[in-house]
């Protein structure tokens, strides 16, 4: 089963992490930034499950961490979208440059 070396799976998750980071740097729209954060969290999940499978196949801790990260990501996305909708109601825009009242 272990025909694919661990480093190749880590290559995928690292590349996904930096794709998400690129999105977080270039996007200025709150919803697309939230989507980039989802990509980051998913790449970390791949890492946890892959390490558990390849290095400690008789334990389950990586799977538990992945499940808890998915749960917390769901809560985070719900709160973030509530904030986005409230921001849109008061500013008529969800661009991060427009919400600068607390900037200075």
């Amino acid at each position: 089963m272990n025909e694919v070396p661990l480093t190749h799976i880590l290559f995928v998750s690292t590349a996904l992490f930096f794709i998400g980071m690129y999105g977080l740097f270039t996007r200025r729209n709150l919803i697309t930034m939230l989507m980039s954060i989802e990509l980051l969290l998913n790449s970390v999940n791949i890492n946890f499950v892959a390490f558990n499978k390849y290095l400690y196949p008789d334990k389950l801790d990586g799977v538990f961490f992945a499940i808890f990260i998915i749960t917390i990501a769901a809560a985070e996305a719900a709160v973030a979208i509530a904030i986005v909708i409230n921001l849109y109601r008061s500013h008529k825009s969800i661009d991060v440059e427009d919400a600068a009242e607390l900037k200075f």
Partner: protein
Amino acid sequence: MTASQIIFYTISAFILGSGLLSVTSTKIFRSAIWLLFSLVGIAGLYFWMQVEFVAAVQIIVYVGGIVVLIIFSIFLTQESGKEMPKPSMRKTIFSVLAALFGFAFTYNLIDEYGFPIGNAKPFNVAVSDIGTQMLSTTDFGYILPFEVVSMLLLASMIGCIVIAMKTPEHEPGEPKEVMLDNNEDAPAPTVVIIPSVPEPLIIAEV
């Protein structure tokens, strides 16, 4: 090259390609759909790694929950057909450089570390094992994080309702009541109050 390897590299190319399109597409709705494909690909990667429970949770929570929530919020806040403004050239160049250098550095570390070749033990995750260890109170049990995460979900649910609740706008009746209260505070004889009540009413309605 065996079938398992071919499946892995296909799934990986799918994940990375749709992830890249998701962060570079200029239309926000297409961006959300590419994110959906990327998350489905990650679920496929979990199936390939034979952790079917995590794959199922990934599909249910991410694809069925978060992406649908994101698409709803796009419909509520954006004109989804409109093109988003492109980031400035300077920002794009520096972001690409940062991502590339970060990736090169990290992958260099991973490549040189030399992970031990797996002892090729089969990795079978039974859902009953996950359930037993999740609720066990002995060592290596996860009952405390489980309870904490349930409190977190409750708190975030209430918090979402409170944050997104619409604050009621001022009804036209409210200043009327305030003025009436002010009038009643004055220690005036009851005979005077009765003609004084209609006056603020008219003011408030005008």
